[in-house]
């Protein structure tokens, strides 16, 4: 009997798993997909919001593609519980699915600030496609949009909101913006840039309640005057979808604890993406990296292992990039390690900032901020990633970078980082083009 793979979740992790199984086995196994929603990419929703793409562009695998990949689907169904002893999954409609191995890739969901009125109409999250549709329907030119939260998710839709000619106010409970993406200096630079571009930012603002008044939303704060909004977006955090696994016996902390093959405490059950707490490639510790690249790499590694390969994952790398009003902001690795030796370079007149964090002469983390016209004429964004990813020893270049944190390229090249990188692959083989799995033999 061919092996029966079960994939729960059709986000980046789930679909990369399915794709990789088919790259490896050409269609020899049975794959079942359970997904609450039709597969789409959350990454591209901001571009749907600003109308630069049509809604059809967000879908990642159509019913026809999944059929061509020989995937049996339960779309619109949620997983209700897992019985790892019996190798069965129960669906929310009472049906049961048997499997030989299973991937849990149920992702995360947006959570709103716990204030009275947060669930009333006109108070949105921007996480799912349905939520994106609601926000799109709600923003008109001249609308006053209040964004609660100034983290990465909020910033990914900032340009889109401005491009719709809406007026934007950002309120943040913390004393500064982007708390988990850049350090204080970087945050101050981005904040100054945004103010210069007409975005109102209120930090240290504790929202206490939201009232609906004459078609508008009135936001009340612990201190300071009220805000009147046409539409409110709560970008106040995400939470992994793990509640349905209570009682399954699978070991969980912040996420499902996984080994270097992405197996949970039950060897036939894998976890990937936002629900997985796996190895951090820089620190070696266990961590949930709820970011797209980790979901993709996790999914591919699980797919290869499900297909019978023996692929150990080197660990994920924390990284993010976001652009606001043509200012690019990116960070890699352990940029916020308070014990790390760090040096920074700041060119306020160009709104440019670099921070490099070290363990000995290896780079363990980096922040890069700069105007689009500066950043993309260099190779620095990717090179910083390469230096953190490889942990290549920079020797005397460390002192050079202390003197000039902006001069990354010669350090990267002369340290033979390219030679270190060329043999590196995630799956121990060349990657396939995205089209390839459609050639699965029927």
């Amino acid at each position, binding site marked *: 009997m061919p092996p029966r793979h079960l994939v729960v979740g059709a986000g980046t992790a789930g679909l990369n798993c399915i794709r990789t199984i088919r790259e490896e086995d050409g269609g020899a196994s049975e794959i079942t997909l359970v997904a609450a929603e039709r597969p789409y990419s959350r990454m*591209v929703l901001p571009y749907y919001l600003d109308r630069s793409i049509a809604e059809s562009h967000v879908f990642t695998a159509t019913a026809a593609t999944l059929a061509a990949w020989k995937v049996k689907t339960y779309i619109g169904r949620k997983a209700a519980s897992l019985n790892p002893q019996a190798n069965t999954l129960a669906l929310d409609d009472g049906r049961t699915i048997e499997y030989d191995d299973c991937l849990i890739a149920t992702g995360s969901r947006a959570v709103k600030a716990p204030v009275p009125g947060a669930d009333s109409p006109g108070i949105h999250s921007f996480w799912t496609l349905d939520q994106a549709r609601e926000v799109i329907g709600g923003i008109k030119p001249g609308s006053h949009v209040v964004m609660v939260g100034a983290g990465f998710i909020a910033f990914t839709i900032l340009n889109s909101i401005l491009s719709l000619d809406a007026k934007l106010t950002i309120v943040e409970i913390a004393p500064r913006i982007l708390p988990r993406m850049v350090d204080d200096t970087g945050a101050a630079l981005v904040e100054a840039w945004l103010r210069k571009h007409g975005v109102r930012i209120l930090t240290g603002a504790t929202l206490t309640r939201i009232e609906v008044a004459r078609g508008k939303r009135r936001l009340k704060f612990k201190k300071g005057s009220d805000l009147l909004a046409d539409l409110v977006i709560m970008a106040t955090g995400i939470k992994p979808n793990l509640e349905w696994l209570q009682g399954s016996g699978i070991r969980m902390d912040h996420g499902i604890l996984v080994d270097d093959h992405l197996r949970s405490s039950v060897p036939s059950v894998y976890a990937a993406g936002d629900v997985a707490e796996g190895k951090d490639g820089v620190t070696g510790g266990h961590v949930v990296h709820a970011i797209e690249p980790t979901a993709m790499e996790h999914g*591919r590694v699980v797919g290869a292992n499900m297909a019978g390969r023996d692929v150990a994952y080197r660990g994920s790398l924390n*990284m993010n990039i976001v652009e606001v009003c043509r200012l690019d902001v990116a960070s890699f690795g352990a940029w916020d390690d308070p014990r790390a030796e760090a040096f920074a370079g700041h060119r306020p007149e160009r709104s440019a900032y670099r921070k490099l964090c070290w363990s000995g002469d290896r780079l363990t983390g980096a922040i890069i901020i700069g105007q*689009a016209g500066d950043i*993309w004429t260099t190779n620095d964004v*990717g090179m910083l*990633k390469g230096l953190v990813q490889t942990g290549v020893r920079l020797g005397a270049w460390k002192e050079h970078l202390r003197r000039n944190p902006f001069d990354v390229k010669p350090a990267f090249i*002369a340290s033979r980082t390219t030679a270190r990188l060329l043999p590196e692959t995630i799956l121990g083989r060349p*990657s396939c083009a*995205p089209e390839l799995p459609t050639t699965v033999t029927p």
Partner: protein
Amino acid sequence: MKVLKIVPEKCTGCLRCELACSYMQTGTFQPAKSVIRVSPYEGHTSYAPYTCTQCVEGWCMTACPVGAITITPVGAKDVVDDRCVGCKLCTIACPYGTIFYDPDTRKAFKCNLCGGAPACAEACPTAAIVYEAVETCDWLGEFANERSMRLLAVGGR
């Protein structure tokens, strides 16, 4: 597959590759938008061009959430413009720093070997860039390392 073999000792720093590349890729002579980029070494006494190796992992390609980076018939990883939304995930996934973002088109862009007739190799007057069927490798590492001693010793540029 044929790759861009770089012979840094032959580079004179004339930047014709950058001009040819930007003209081929964007229709304008605009080195800032070239995807092959020449750097100086040893206080501008030597130079070498740097570009995408078309690595087998294809970090940019696997990172793309909408499958907008694919492998062309000549084996280059290339951005499909009408699929790319400009999210820049590829630019942080590529550990070589050889995929870029164009704020004017709002798309990612990179070396695509000009469909099998690379303009940079054709424009190079000293054959420092050769389009050849060889295994790709770290063409610049040793060269750059040898020519960094003075820079590192004096503690300046």
